[in-house]
């Protein structure tokens, strides 16, 4: 049978899936509208910024701004889905596995569907400012060229984010590859650190020429090629346009090819990862197999052990853990280049706790077995927090040591650790109630970065809100640090621990009582397709 499912079919499907996800859920609709408003605001702000060189009649500024701004957008599309938002996988590629669709049709359709989203539209709106500026500076030819460049740039961004998340999803799925992924992340972190330091150093010298020269280089890379085509026409360098067109098209083609090949692996899904069954040499008693280390042989011990194993065995959880580890290592390096290093660092503690904000969504319907067994809410939440802490607290110690080493204030290590732990406790206190009230189902795919339609927005906003609350909560400690002076070097750790523990106790008690009242509702919320 001939298949003529054009991109339009996929776009309609995507819109319908999105609408279906919103129907009858007032909370989701509100979040969606809020997200659209935020995106609109950002888009208009971006439009004005990009159009500004046109109003100022400054072609040089236009070239620099378009190139670097565009490059930053590409990088943002590349990295943000990995770290924060996840990609909207309302059209899960594996659902198309059984349909007789040629790869070209599928990739074209999924790509079109990926373009049909709030972020892509917002980006198009914002970069339209470049077209406006190009029109003011160089008339119709420049504007037309820039419009082409803006469209190409948008395609490049979307293709890059799809290709990278899809490749990462495939990589993190197999157990052998996860160590590779860890190394890769560490490398990435190591690269971002020095780059950031160099950028900050450059900015401090405030050398406009230097920035412009950097832009000239970036303009010839895939990051900036598409966006810098308009200014080329304005400057009378029309010969550069075809070359840059080739650069942009070639990178787009490469990304799409990469995406297509990893898509195929994603569609094969679990069939690839077979042959994992293995038999232990000697049979240990079941309870010993389950429990980690010297944890008690009771309910709490079992709950904590399962959490510990799940943070490593679940792809989603592993992804968030690795992301956090990378953040923890490179944030101190990045922050040390600025002045706010030590005041900002406790933020890492909050970020660690935020990964619990949708903890019930991780296992979905499996939570049913806790309800059936009658696990009390407080035990549930505290053991879950304990499981995460097994990974987080050593990392926080590393962060404290690294942070104080880099800033050269070794004496502050203990105080810094105190603030980190306090921030972690506060973060938990905020994340636990959110996890009970705001639980949502994650789609049943093996892509750890996938979120259901609309939920990505919800996740982003909720995370942001939790961070703000926890950050404000951590302010008293920062203030005390500031006012008390040297005594804080001694007091910082005990006071921080006490502060964090108190916050955690209060938060988990509150959230535990909430969970006791809402167990079935939480289960319904995290069960996919309900």
């Amino acid at each position: 049978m001939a298949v003529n499912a054009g991109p339009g079919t996929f776009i309609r499907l995507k819109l319908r899936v999105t609408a279906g996800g919103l129907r009858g859920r007032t909370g989701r609709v509100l979040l969606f509208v809020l997200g659209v408003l935020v995106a609109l605001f950002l888009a208009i702000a971006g439009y004005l910024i990009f159009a500004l060189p046109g109003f100022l009649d400054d072609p040089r500024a236009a070239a620099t701004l378009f190139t670097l701004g565009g490059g930053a957008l590409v990088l943002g599309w590349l990295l943000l889905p990995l770290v924060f938002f996840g990609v909207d996988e309302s059209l899960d590629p594996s659902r198309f596995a059984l349909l007789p669709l040629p790869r070209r049709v599928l990739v074209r359709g999924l790509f079109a569907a990926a373009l049909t989203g709030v972020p892509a539209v917002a980006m198009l709106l914002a970069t339209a400012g470049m077209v406006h500026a190009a029109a003011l500076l160089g008339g119709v030819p420049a504007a037309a060229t820039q419009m082409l460049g803006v469209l190409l740039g948008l395609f490049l961004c979307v293709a890059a984010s799809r290709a990278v998340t899809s490749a990462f999803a495939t990589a993190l799925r197999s157990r052998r590859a996860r160590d590779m992924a860890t190394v890769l992340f560490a490398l990435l972190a190591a690269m971002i650190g020095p780059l950031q330091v160099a950028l900050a150093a450059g900015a401090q010298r405030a050398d406009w020429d230097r920035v412009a020269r950097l832009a000239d280089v970036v303009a010839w890379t895939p990051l900036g090629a598409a966006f810098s085509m308009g200014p080329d026409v304005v400057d009378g360098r029309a010969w550069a346009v075809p070359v840059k067109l080739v650069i942009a098209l070639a990178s787009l083609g490469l990304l799409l090819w990469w995406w297509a090949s990893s898509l195929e692996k994603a569609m094969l899904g679990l069939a690839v990862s077979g042959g994992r069954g293995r038999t232990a040499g000697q049979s240990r008693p079941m309870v010993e197999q389950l429990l980690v280390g010297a944890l008690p042989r009771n309910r709490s011990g079992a709950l904590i052990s399962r959490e510990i194993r799940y943070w490593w065995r679940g792809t989603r959880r592993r992804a968030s853990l690795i992301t956090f580890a990378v953040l923890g290592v490179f944030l101190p390096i990045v922050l040390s280049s600025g002045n706010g290093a030590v005041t900002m660092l406790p933020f890492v503690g909050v970020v660690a706790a935020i990964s619990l904000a949708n903890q019930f969504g991780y296992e979905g319907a499996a939570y049913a077995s806790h309800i059936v067994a009658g696990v009390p809410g407080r035990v549930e939440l505290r053991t879950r927090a304990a499981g995460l802490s097994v990974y987080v607290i050593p990392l926080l110690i590393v962060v404290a040591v690294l942070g104080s080493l880099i800033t050269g204030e070794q004496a502050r290590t203990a105080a810094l650790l105190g603030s980190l732990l306090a921030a972690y406790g506060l973060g938990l206190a905020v994340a636990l109630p959110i996890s009970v009230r705001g639980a949502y189902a994650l789609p049943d795919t093996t892509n750890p970065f996938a979120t259901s339609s609309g939920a990505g927005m919800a996740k982003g906003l909720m995370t942001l809100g939790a961070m703000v609350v926890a950050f404000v909560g951590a302010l008293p400690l920062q203030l005390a640090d500031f006012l008390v002076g040297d005594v804080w070097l001694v007091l910082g750790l005990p006071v921080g621990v006490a502060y964090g523990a108190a916050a955690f106790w209060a938060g988990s008690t509150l959230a535990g009582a909430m969970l006791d009242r809402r167990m079935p509702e939480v289960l319904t919320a995290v069960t996919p397709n309900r």
Partner: protein
Amino acid sequence: MALRGLVKRFEAKTAVAGVDLDVPAGSFFGLLGPNGAGKTTTLSMAVGLLRPDGGDIRVLGHDVWRDPVRAKSLIGVLPDGARLFDRLSGGELLAYHGLLRGMDPRVVDQRAAELLDVLALGTDNRTLVVDYSAGMKKKIGLACALLHGPRLLVLDEPFEAVDPVSASLIRDILQRYVSGGGTVIFSSHVMEVVERLCSHVAIMAEGAIRRSGTLAEVRGEDSLEHVFVSVVGGRTATGSELAWL
């Protein structure tokens, strides 16, 4: 187990509209119904997984929603689909369920090994449950439900997607459990299994119980399948449609 006036509405649709059902102690009870009849919804409410909009559920005299701790300790549940912590190995999962129920670790070890052995899942098998076949998943789910020695077993579609060998094993274990004084209620749409196993049957359609009683009462002189189709109101093929087949 006794259900009285159970109601559940989802947004626009009423999934369960006033179900009254008595499951006598010691019975092997089959809950029959076409897809979407409300079987899973009813059983979910009965074990405390889904809050009913109205009605009462008592298990051996304990109200599931007002006295959940007592009631739940008497029930073993095999939920539908993948409602297990499937990134543990079979042994780990059993130990987990045992400890969650507050059992003595030594008893857990002993019973878990026995269950894995009887259900032919292998006591040394370190494969994660997520990689199990459908039949193995059902078996490990059943083992989890049986581990704490419940008085009442609530099973949702225990024979769905299970190979004949596993199915006959599950049947044997359930029959032994009932003859030992336990009560089983399970949902199914496989007439032949229900007819062979059950002492009592109820037929459900569109959120209500249409027939209920002992197998003989419900079946009468006819075959169960015939009764089922006529009660549910299905159509029978006349032969004129789908002629192109």
